[in-house]
């Protein structure tokens, strides 16, 4: 059996092109050699020529029934009113406040989440320092200025300043009385500074 000059797959690619006269002379030569040797590809080529003849029949059949000038007649009025070609302008973009706000909020949330996830910024510490600043109070029962409760949040601004008066209880424990409300404070109940936290008296 004679060795094929090219693979059938490659030959069929050329068959598709050859059916419409789109092969180069060297390709046509290779293909004809292959077709001479391969009966399957010969049959395939014949089928392709039949399919192309259908396209050829349809090719010359579609007459344009509109008279020349009909398209121009339809648009000339519109164009003459314009005088000059309208410049192509890309669609205008409007600033969308809602989307911008949403983006800003999302960004802020992302930053807050990122900062919170840093080592040393645990969730409780964040809440205690920022959301409940009054819980971090310094307490000095024996200071000369008298006991006071101060806000030690980052802003440093005072939130409340109850005037506490030390008072010795019946069993010897020290209580503190709020001058304004008369409420008694027991030292144990007052939140203590945690490890490493500075007390601000």
């Amino acid at each position, binding site marked *: 059996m004679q060795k094929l000059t090219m693979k059938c797959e490659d030959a069929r690619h050329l068959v598709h092109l050859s059916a419409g006269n789109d092969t180069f002379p060297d390709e046509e030569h290779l293909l004809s050699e292959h077709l001479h040797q391969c009966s399957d590809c010969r049959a395939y080529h014949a089928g392709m020529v039949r399919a192309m003849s259908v396209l050829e029949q349809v090719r010359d*059949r579609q007459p344009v029934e509109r008279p020349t000038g009909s398209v121009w007649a339809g648009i000339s009025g519109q164009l003459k009113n314009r005088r000059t*070609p309208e410049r192509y302008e890309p669609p205008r973009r409007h600033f969308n406040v809602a989307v911008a706000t949403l983006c800003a909020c999302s960004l802020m949330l992302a930053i807050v989440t990122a900062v919170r996830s840093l080592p040393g910024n645990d969730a409780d510490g964040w809440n205690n320092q920022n959301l409940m600043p009054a819980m971090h109070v310094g307490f000095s029962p024996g200071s000369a200025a008298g006991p006071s409760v101060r806000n030690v949040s980052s802003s440093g601004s005072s939130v409340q300043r109850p005037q506490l008066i030390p008072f010795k209880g019946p069993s010897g424990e020290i209580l503190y009385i709020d001058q304004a409300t008369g409420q008694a404070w027991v030292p144990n109940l007052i939140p203590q500074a945690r490890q490493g936290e500075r007390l601000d008296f």
Partner: protein
Amino acid sequence: MLRMTEPDANFDSSETDRESDDSVRSLATDARLVDHARHGDTDAFGQLVMRYERRVLKVIRRFMPDQDMAQDLAQETFLKAFDRLDQFDPSRRFGPWLFRIAVNSTYDHLRKIKRKGRWMVFSEAGDDRVPDPEAADPRGELDLSQEVQTVLEDIPEAYRTVLVLRDLEGFSTSEVAAVTERTEATIRWRLAEARRMFKEAWDRRQRFIEEEQLG
């Protein structure tokens, strides 16, 4: 076998400007007419429309058999071309640029119809035209054209465009490459694939028809 078309035969002139040789203006090149049209000369643009309108209509009708719709799309094509003249690169040929607008507008329209059709409860009815008894029976020709049209609809757009322009409209591969903005090598490859797809679909359809006829 199909004939090879001469390069640029489709783009540089048409039967219409040969018909109107008496006009000096018809001898003007596309580039000159485009230049005038860019400066607002609608008559110059009119010359371009007259040159290309039949070719554009024919190409559109290969994708959109409805004549009225094809006419509307041809008008839309020229209006778009007029509006975008300032985007046209004068160092290139006007024809491929215009046909590209035509093909893209047609595909856009076909996609719109397809999308609309999905959500429509009732489809639009076709024309109920009474056939002219004097006219020759066009069904034989229509059958073949419609069959080819149906088969072509199964071929992906990128391949269908190449097949229609090359094998039905007779554009050369270089012209198809210019219209689709692809290299000639790509067009040759797509053309081979498109013809393979057409052959397979056509053979399948013929087998199906034969089986139906046999019962």
